[in-house]
């Protein structure tokens, strides 16, 4: 594919995006009205979220983070402390607020309600959001492995008719079924036990389950706590940063600056081990503040996980083009979500595909000076709590 360099947004582009936004809004409204299968429970009554006061307005951008989604937490915690970000947005008349949430589905809930304008989610929540909301997904924020952990070294085929823990509808669920499929087994041949990732290590050790499928840091926590555990399978999974398309209507530069903040954070973390460990600490603190669950992973281990993940790459976190094709993993995940009725069958892949926009990050990347990728001004505490 010939990469076209795009400069600043022209009037034509603005009109085009506006029309696209309007059409998408109409489509999503229709889809949402008739076919939205997602049954968000009222998370506004959640004990954690009920305390949040979402201030809304054209000058406010509410950004949902997932401190428990390691290692992306390192990036978002750095972003929360990025003075350049706040300054850049304030020059646009925008205030950014960060709201930590527990998981991607929660972020989607508040995006739908309009309480959030942007957020982070794994591939499953991102695809679900793309199918049911009008969003734009400009970049990766995580690329690591979802693991199947067993209580001993066994083959996947040995999990046939055995209890396996999983989180329904997550990329871990998808990874589990994919692993089974690669060994010629079907979903009906697994005894799936839905559970929270926090329960999985102890359930594995007690023998309640023979294995579980989960994203980091649950596998690392399990291996630390119960050294006899073994990772028997891994599947590459991704996380994305996505925005309600309405933000571009307000000012497309908002997305650019936030993306720039992300790139800057990655560059800052990669620039030294000290930064890596510091952001690792920030992420763990934020995770523990949000959840009472045992996050028995050290700063160093968390840092190592981050290094093996997206932070391994010095390249920008651009969404791989081959993942958006019909042979790609995102399309297969989309089909999986339709099969388990999270996405209604009437939603077409095209809608999801068009949510992914690689050009935005390229726009940002071609302006390193403007977006100050290599200038770092980080506060020791989160600027907006």
């Amino acid at each position, binding site marked *: 594919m010939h990469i076209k360099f795009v400069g600043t947004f022209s009037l034509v582009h603005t009109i085009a995006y506006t029309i696209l936004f309007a059409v998408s809004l109409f489509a999503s409204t229709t889809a949402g009205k008739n076919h939205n299968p997602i049954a968000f429970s009222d998370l506004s009554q959640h004990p954690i979220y009920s305390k949040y006061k979402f201030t809304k307005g054209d000058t406010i951008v509410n950004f949902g983070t997932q401190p428990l989604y390691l290692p992306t937490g390192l990036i978002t915690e750095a972003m929360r402390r990025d003075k350049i970000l706040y300054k850049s947005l304030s020059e646009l008349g925008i205030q950014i607020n960060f709201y930590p949430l527990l998981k991607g589905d929660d972020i989607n809930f508040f995006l739908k309600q309009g309480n959030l304008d942007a957020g982070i989610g794994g591939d499953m929540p991102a695809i679900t959001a793309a199918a049911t909301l009008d969003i734009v997904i400009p970049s990766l924020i995580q690329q690591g492995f979802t693991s199947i952990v067993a209580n001993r070294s066994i083959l996947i085929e040995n999990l046939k008719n055995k209890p396996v823990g999983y989180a329904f509808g997550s990329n871990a669920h998808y990874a589990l079924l994919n692993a089974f499929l690669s060994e010629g087994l079907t979903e009906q041949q697994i005894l799936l036990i839905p559970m929270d990732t926090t329960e999985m290590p102890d359930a594995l050790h007690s023998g309640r389950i023979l294995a579980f499928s989960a994203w980091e840091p649950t596998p690392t926590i399990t291996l630390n706590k119960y050294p006899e555990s073994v990772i028997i399978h891994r599947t*590459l999974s991704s996380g994305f940063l996505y925005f309600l398309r309405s933000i571009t209507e307000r000012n497309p530069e908002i997305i650019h600056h936030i993306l720039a903040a992300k790139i800057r954070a990655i560059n800052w973390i990669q620039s030294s081990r000290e930064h890596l460990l510091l952001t690792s600490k920030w992420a763990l603190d934020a995770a523990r503040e949000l959840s009472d669950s045992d996050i028995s992973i050290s700063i160093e281990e968390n840092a190592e996980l981050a290094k093996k993940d997206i932070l*391994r790459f010095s390249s920008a976190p651009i969404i791989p083009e081959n993942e958006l094709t019909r042979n790609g993993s995102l399309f297969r995940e989309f089909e999986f979500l339709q099969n388990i009725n999270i996405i209604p069958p009437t939603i077409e892949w095209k809608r999801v595909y068009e949510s992914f926009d690689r050009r935005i990050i390229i726009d940002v990347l071609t302006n390193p*000076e403007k977006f100050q990728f290599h200038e770092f001004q980080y506060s020791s505490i989160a600027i907006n709590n």
Partner: protein
Amino acid sequence: MRNKSNTASLKMKYFLFSIRTRILFYFGLLFAIILAFILLIGMYGMPFTDFTGEYGQHRDIEFQNLNLIAELKKERLLRWIEERKDDARVIANSSILNTYINRLLLLQEKNFYHNENKGKSWKVIQNEADYQFIQQHLKLVQSSYEVYDKIQIADAKMGRIIASTHDEDIGADVSSYNYFIKALHPANSEIFCIDKDPLNNQLKLFLSRKCQPHQNNAIIPAVVIIHVDSRDLINPLLNTKIKNSTTSETFLVNEEGKLLTALKYPLKNNSVGNILESEITLPFVINAAMGQEGITVTKDYRGEPVLAAYRHLRISPDSGWGLIVKKDQSEIFAVMNKDKITFLIIGISGTFLAFIFTSLIANTLSKPILHLSQVARKIKEGNWNIRANTTYKGEAGLLATTFNSMIDRIQLHHESLEKQVTLRTKELQETNDRLTKEIEDRKKSEDKLKKYGMLFDNISDLAYICDTNGNILFLNKAFEKMTGRKPETFFGKPFSPLFDEENLKIAVELYTGTLQGKHLQREVTFKDTGIICEYKNMPLFDNNGQLIGVIGVARDITSRKASERERNKLTKELEMKNEELERFTYTVSHDLKSPLLTIKGFLGFLEKDLVDGKTEQIRDDIKRIHSAANKMERLLEELLELSRIGRVVNKHEAVSLESLTREVLDLLSSNISHSDIKLLFPQNLPLVYVDRIRFSEVMQNLIENAMKYRGNQTKPIIEIGAKKESEHILCYVKDNGIGIHPRYHDKVFGLFERLDKSTDGTGIGLTIAKRIIEIHGGRIWLESKGENQGCTFYFTVPQKGDLYGHPQS
């Protein structure tokens, strides 16, 4: 021959089912099964449990090893790649180097644009100090890591090599190569790929990065390109052999499944896998390229069963490689196969030992039993003096002792039995001889019977033979005609169903009497046909004079009996007639004598009176004589009339009793009118089938008598009536006159009988009436309670007749 094969088959059967064989077989088999089970579980694990056996454990260890190796290789590769990227980054980000590169670029541009001889201009650069500095720097980096084939700097705008560790590279056009194009993408930093060297077309590892001395500067002046000879590094990295393994292999594929390293073995079609051309589309390879990691039991590109650990190497956010580390299962489980052989040897040896041991046990167990069976055989052959060996220990010894006791007892019993048998045999022999003779005799009798059977069948009388139990042995053809039953239904069965109770009694009496030796004859009637037979039985003896049954003949005497009855009837009638004739003769002679005596007497008186001249007396005498003569004449006429009845028969016809009664009453009307007699008779009197003339005589007679014998009845009534009964008409003439005492009821029908001699009449009327009624087949009688009680005469007449005019009842 047949006996030999039977014996052989029996021997085989004995061998197969003997205790020894069975213990050997079952215990040996059981042992073998248990051993096999234990070995199999030990080898392959217990299903539905976590115990995977040695096979599973060995496999798990191999898996762990393979996983570890794959992980190590992956980490090593990734680290190596990172190190190479670092090298590229260092070069690309070196500000000093970039300064010289920029100067060189300016120079190049000036030469390029302003010198038409481009080839020459590129070579000219080599003499430039900036070029030499850059080259020196590059060579320094190259020397730091021996596998760097060369390091180049390419112009970002034109894609031409402007500096290189190798002078001959200067001016080469790399603008179309992926490693150059991708390096220029703003999202990409280091690019790592395998491609062909444009200069010599050899496959190489290329590491490229855009030169970016100022990270905030979007302008890219040049691209650093590092050539790495994969043979020098990657291959050793990948081909680090697994210890003590000859079949292990490691290879890399890109995201399309195309080989990035050479294969150890040829492909399935015997072709060699070409780097960047051949695709390995096996599922685990594709999975590895697409982002999955794991371990699997599968077949490799040769079709060989292997254990394969696969890893995904993420080279950049948008590209990745698949790393496969595999080992042939045959090698992995070669140890197990050796163990299998060992186990097999152990198993066979164990089973063999078990068989030997079991055989010894079987021997120990079966020996006393065999000994007992030998002893039993000898006893069976007649050697009663032999006994079992009681020296065996335990149950066998107890069995032998008990066996011996049993033999002693049996021997005693046997001897006693033998005596009895001898005796009984003798008796049986005698009985047998007797029976044989009996059978012979019976056979002879049967033959005789058969011989005479035809004769018997042709006689009209029923011939039969019964045995001493009353069962029929023989019947001739006449049986069916006599009894109405088929003879074959009675062979061997008793004769009782042929008779009713009364006749059966007679038949049984005849049969039993015959058995007692009497020659008896009886008359018996068959129930079904009513045929009367005269049975003559006699006892039947065999040649030894033994009574064996009864033989008899039954003659049909039904017609004879009927004739006898008829004869008796006729005789009786004749006697009655004779009596009647005697009575008649007496009566006639007596009654006729009376008027004759009167005539005779009064003739005497007349003679006297004539002499005396008593005229009045003479008249009276003549009157008396005249009266007596008239009486005699009347008597004779009525007698004649009586005799005519029965001889002169008129045709019978249907006569209305009513009209006949009226006719009779008309005849008697003068008498009726001079009396006060009331006549009663209904109008719907039935028809009667009679001789009209004779019947009117009857009616006339009866009515006249009723009128005559009314006595002093002031209101005499005569009632005439009739009613239909089942087979006849019952008529009656009833009066309320003087009646007749019951003792005279029969007498009144006698000839010349008159109860009241003062009345007129001959006394023949009722006799005539009776005769007429009897001729009609009827009956006449009277009912009267006695004097002055009135009298009713009843008589029956037929109500229909046959074609011939005969009345029918």
